[in-house]
Each structure stands twice: as structure tokens, then as C-alpha cells.
């Protein structure tokens, strides 16, 4: 209880500090504008935008860097639904469920109301999820403090298994991608004897494969190559004008908003499922329990609200395993985890002890970012169609040059740029072959700690291996893993 009260105190004091810092507000605003553009352009995703900017975060203080990254994410989530409404193409994969009612609303001539509902629902969902995160995360941290090396290793394995099983259509391919990611993380000097593994005499590989080049290559360059190799023209049919923000929808659809918030948080907590699934579940639940269920699919504001709230609350849920166990729950949180490593912040149950204000800083950044994005999205809603007409043939080559410059900025070596390029090619081959990319990214991020904790646990219990396996916390994780896999597959099938 004392920890909860302390976190709330930190939260409000952090809000005041962040508001008074021009660099943080500037970073957040820049992030919101980038996120708005990324979210509104079909084919570009929040993860791509975040990973592109990751290389530049080195030069920024940690709170400004996180303000930028969270700004991009919230900006993209706020606006991804706008294209779903105006052109029936989701701006981000997370906004796919918004097309179900958003586009019919636009066809009825209610595009401005629908866009207003997207902006309003996104902000409300994010703010609610921040409050729940502030209560839930310290509780999870207290439980996680009982974890030893064996339990942390099991949690890492759980992450790879669940992400591998749920992020694609084929679990075997997902697990292969995860194992390959873990292998990539073993390249370089290992962390007990400093023995050089799989470097084959290449001096630059001694330090291992960097997170930044790998992430920019897999998420950024891959996306650029895959979008540019195709030519898909689209027509703009939306009407011009500012979005009509209606505050009364919060009161009118309060139960739907609350239900979608909880769904978004829970789905976010399951590693690998993420924001592309939660809106569908929330939409389905809203449809089942609504008095106007026959209106769903024909242009119902409640359907738009349900999908958008869940879409925007998933980040908070995904942050719990990311910050407490070091296992990201979704693509954007994988980038946030990489940023944590960049700034030398160690995720884990001790995070709230070693850096007591960190959770409050992140929660305050999401809270403020949702307000900034609400304002930005409202003001720019009139120009959504103008932005939509920006040719991808111009934007994406510029993004490719930024990938190169961003990677250079991380370590100032051309070798890293080549690593980024190779990962870009690997990412394309994986996508063509049907291998999902998130498990590989997760493997690269957690490979080092998985190896270290496994070997430490085995050495500590080398005389009593049975005792190690039967530790109660470890057994509880195994049961949780089985439950997550079972329910996750059910959720995945529901999405299909």
C-alpha cells in the first residue's frame, strides 16, 4: 500500500516536472507529429517510426528520448483509425477493426463524427490505462521480487514460446525465429568467461550484434523494402473539415470504454499478441453486449469507440512484462526495451527500487502524450487527407536514408550500418517465407540474460537439479505459460 501511495505521489510530481520542461514537451510534440504522419500513411507503422528514431535517442536525455518514442506511438495509435474511416485502409495494423464501423459512418456522411470519436476514445483509453498501470505494476514487481535466476530464465523462455506461438500463423516458424534471435544474441564475448563466440575472427563482432542496428534493420528497412517493391495506388474519398469531438461519448459509452480498457490491458500483458488483436476482441465483446447490436457493422460509433480504446490501452498492459521481467509484450514495447538498454536502465523486479521514479515518469509521459496527441490530432484532422496524399515513393527513400544515419548515430561505425542492412535483407526473406519478425527481435533482446540466468541457476543447484525444477515460483510460471498458450491460441483463432 505504501509503495502504491509513493508511486502516485511520484506520478503527480513527475507530471509537474515534465510540463515545466520545454525539451520534454518539444520531444513529445515532435514524436506526436511523426506518429501522426506514420499513423495516417498506410504501410507505415508505429514500430517502424519508433525504431527509426531509436538511433538518435543516444544523444538525448533519457526522459526526452522516451517522450519522443512514446509520442510517436501514441500519435500513430490516435490517428491510425482516421484512414480506416476515410479510405477504408487501416493506417496501422492496430486500426483494422475500426474499418468495420468507421468506413460505413464515412459513407453516411459522418466521417467527422467518426474521426472525433477515434480521437476522443484514444485519449480516454490511454488515460484510464495509465491509472490502472500505476496500481498493477508495483503489485507485479512485489511478486517478481521473489524470483531467482531459474524463474527469470523460465520467464524468458515463456516470452519466446508465447511470442513465437502467437505472433504468426505458424507456431513452428515463430519458435524458429525466436531461437534464431537467441542465437544472434550469443554472438560476441560471452558474459561469464569473456569467451569469443561465433565471431570467426571478425574483430567488430566481439562486442556482439547491437540492438539498434538489428531493430532498425528488421522493423525499419524491411518495411521500407517490402512496401516499395509493390505499387498499390489508393483513392482518397474523405471529406475535408475538422473532426467533431463529442465529449458526451465518454458518459454514453462508459461501460464499453471500461471493458475495452481491461481487454486492451490483458491482451497487452500476454507477450506477442499486442494491439493488432485487442481491438477485435473488444469490438466483438461490445457487439455482444450492446443494445444496438444490429447497428454494428453498419456505422455505429460504439463499435469505433470499443476498437479504438482497446487499441490504445494495449501499450500500458504490454509495459508490465517489459519493465518487470524484461520481456516485451508487443513490437512497440520491444523498441522501448531496447531504449532502456541504451540508457543503461535494467528492467526487472528491482527497477522500482533502483530507479523509484521511473514507472511514474513513463506513466506521466503516456498521460501527457495522450493529451498532446489529442490536441495534435484534433488540430490536424482537417489536414488528414492532405497528408494521405503524400507519395510513399518520396517518404520511404528518405526513411531509408534515415535508417542509415540513425544506425551510424548509435555507435559511429560503418560495420553497424552493414549489420542493419543485413538484418533488413533477413527481415524481407523472413516475411516472404512466412517467419514472423517479433520473436527474432525478442530473442536478440533477451538472449544475453537468458543465457546468463540459466547457467547461474544450474551452477547454484548443480548438486540438486530436481530441487531447482520443483521450485514453487518456477512451477507457477510453467502453469501460467501453459494457460497463456492455451488462451492465446484461442484469441489468435478468434482474430483469424
Amino acid at each position, binding site marked *: 500500500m505504501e509503495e502504491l501511495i509513493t508511486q502516485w505521489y511520484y506520478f503527480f510530481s513527475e507530471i509537474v516536472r515534465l510540463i515545466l520542461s520545454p525539451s520534454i514537451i518539444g520531444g513529445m510534440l515532435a514524436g506526436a507529429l511523426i506518429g501522426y504522419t506514420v499513423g495516417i500513411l498506410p504501410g507505415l507503422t508505429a514500430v517502424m517510426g519508433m525504431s527509426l528514431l531509436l538511433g538518435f535517442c543516444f*544523444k*538525448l536525455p533519457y526522459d526526452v528520448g522516451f517522450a519522443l518514442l512514446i509520442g510517436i506511438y501514441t500519435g500513430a495509435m490516435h490517428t491510425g483509425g482516421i484512414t480506416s474511416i476515410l479510405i477504408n485502409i487501416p493506417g496501422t495494423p492496430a486500426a483494422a477493426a475500426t474499418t468495420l464501423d468507421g468506413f460505413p459512418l464515412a459513407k453516411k456522411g459522418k466521417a467527422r463524427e467518426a474521426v472525433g470519436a477515434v480521437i476522443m476514445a484514444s485519449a480516454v483509453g490511454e488515460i484510464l490505462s495509465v491509472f490502472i498501470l500505476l496500481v498493477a505494476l508495483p503489485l507485479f514487481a512485489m511478486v517478481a521480487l521473489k524470483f531467482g535466476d531459474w524463474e527469470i530464465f523460465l520467464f524468458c523462455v515463456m516470452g519466446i514460446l508465447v511470442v513465437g506461438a502467437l505472433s504468426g500463423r505458424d507456431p513452428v516458424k515463430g519458435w524458429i525465429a525466436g531461437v534464431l534471435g537467441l542465437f544472434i544474441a550469443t554472438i560476441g564475448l560471452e558474459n561469464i*568467461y569473456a569467451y569469443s563466440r561465433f565471431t570467426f575472427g571478425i574483430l567488430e563482432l566481439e562486442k556482439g550484434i547491437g540492438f539498434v542496428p538489428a531493430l532498425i534493420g528488421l522493423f525499419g528497412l524491411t518495411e521500407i523494402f517490402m512496401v516499395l*517493391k509493390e505499387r498499390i495506388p489508393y483513392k482518397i474519398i474523405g471529406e475535408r473539415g475538422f473532426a467533431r469531438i463529442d465529449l458526451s461519448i465518454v458518459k454514453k459509452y462508459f461501460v464499453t470504454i471500461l471493458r475495452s480498457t481491461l481487454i486492451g490491458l490483458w491482451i497487452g500483458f500476454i507477450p506477442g499478441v499486442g494491439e493488432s488483436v485487442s481491438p477485435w476482441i473488444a469490438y466483438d465483446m461490445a457487439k455482444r453486449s450492446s443494445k444496438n447490436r444490429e447497428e454494428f457493422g453498419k456505422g455505429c460509433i460504439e463499435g469505433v469507440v470499443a476498437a479504438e480504446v482497446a487499441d490504445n490501452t494495449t501499450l500500458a498492459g504490454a509495459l508490465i512484462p517489459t519493465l518487470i521481467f524484461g520481456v516485451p509484450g508487443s513490437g512497440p514495447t520491444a523498441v522501448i526495451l531496447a531504449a532502456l538498454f541504451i540508457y543503461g536502465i535494467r528492467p526487472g523486479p528491482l527497477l522500482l527500487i533502483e530507479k523509484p521514479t521511473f514507472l511514474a515518469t513513463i506513466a506521466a509521459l503516456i498521460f501527457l502524450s495522450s493529451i498532446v496527441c489529442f490536441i495534435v490530432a484534433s488540430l490536424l484532422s482537417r489536414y488528414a487527407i492532405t497528408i494521405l496524399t503524400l507519395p510513399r515513393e518520396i517518404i520511404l*527513400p528518405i526513411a531509408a536514408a534515415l535508417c542509415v544515419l540513425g544506425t551510424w548515430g548509435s555507435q559511429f561505425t560503418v560495420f553497424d550500418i552493414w549489420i542493419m542492412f543485413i538484418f533488413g535483407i533477413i527481415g524481407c526473406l523472413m516475411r516472404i517465407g512466412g517467419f514472423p519478425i517479433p520473436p527474432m527481435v525478442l530473442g536478440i533482446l533477451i538472449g544475453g540474460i537468458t543465457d546468463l540466468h540459466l547457467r547461474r541457476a544450474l551452477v547454484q543447484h548443480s548438486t540438486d537439479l530436481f530441487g531447482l525444477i520443483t521450485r514453487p515460483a518456477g512451477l507457477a510460471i510453467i502453469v501460467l505459460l501453459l494457460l497463456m498458450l492455451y488462451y492465446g491460441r484461442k484469441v489468435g483463432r478468434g482474430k483469424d
Partner: protein
Amino acid sequence: MLRLINTFPSIFLMIFSIFILKESIDMPKPIIGLVGVFVSPGFFPVLLSISLLLLSVRLFLRELKLSNPKGLNMKSILKSIELKRWMILALATALYIYLFDKFYFSILTFIYLIFLFLFLKTESLSILKIIISALIATFVISYIIPLVFEMPLPFG
């Protein structure tokens, strides 16, 4: 034939995992006994290579058993315009990276962008629009960003 092509990734992964297994087993074991196995640098890669081998065998058998194979169609892939576009994009980017520390960055970026804009050009884009876009983007990438983020460039 199609069935065999679909098994290529799994065959490659099997060979790769065997290679990793051999390399990992050859790694030193600093202490004798069970503890020596656990602390060996090769212990974790051995587990990974065995897992990868089992998974790729599973994938291989499944692809081979598929009665109605779908997916990779090498003939259509090799002939497709998409592959050509992808190859040119990748080659242009590789050349850009190769020249990154050998040539003036601003001029190199301008040439790279102009080349890609012209290569990807749609009818709605005029040459003037392309040149102006490339100039603005080059200015931002080569001067503004390195200045704001205090980022030294290798050459110019």
C-alpha cells in the same frame, strides 16, 4: 517440385543448426564435471542448436507431407517485377552504405534520393517536384539532423 522448393528454408536451417552444434561443442569447458558443462560458453548455444534442429526437422517433415503445397513458386518469383524492384532497392542501398565513409555524405545522399525517386516515380510526380524534395531531404538529413544530434559524419 513445388513441394521440394518449400522445404529449402528447413533444409538450410538444419545444416545451419548442425554447424552451430559442432562449433558449440568445440568450445572450452573450464571446469571438469557437471559444473564445467554448465559454465561452458558453448552450453547455451548447444541447447539452441538442438532446439533449432528439432524445429527445422519438424518444419521439413510438415512441408514434405503437405498434399496441396502453397507458398513459394520460384518461377513466378524470379520473373516478377516485384523482385526486380526489390533487388534494385537493395543494391542502391548497399552502394549508398559502401560509399558512406568514402564520399561526401550530402552529395551521396542527394544522388541516392534522386535515383530512388526517379526509379520509383509515379506519373503524378514531376521532375521539379522530385528535385525539390531531394534537395530539402538532403539538407535535413546531412545538415540539420547531424547538427541537432551533434552527430559527426565520416566524410563531409
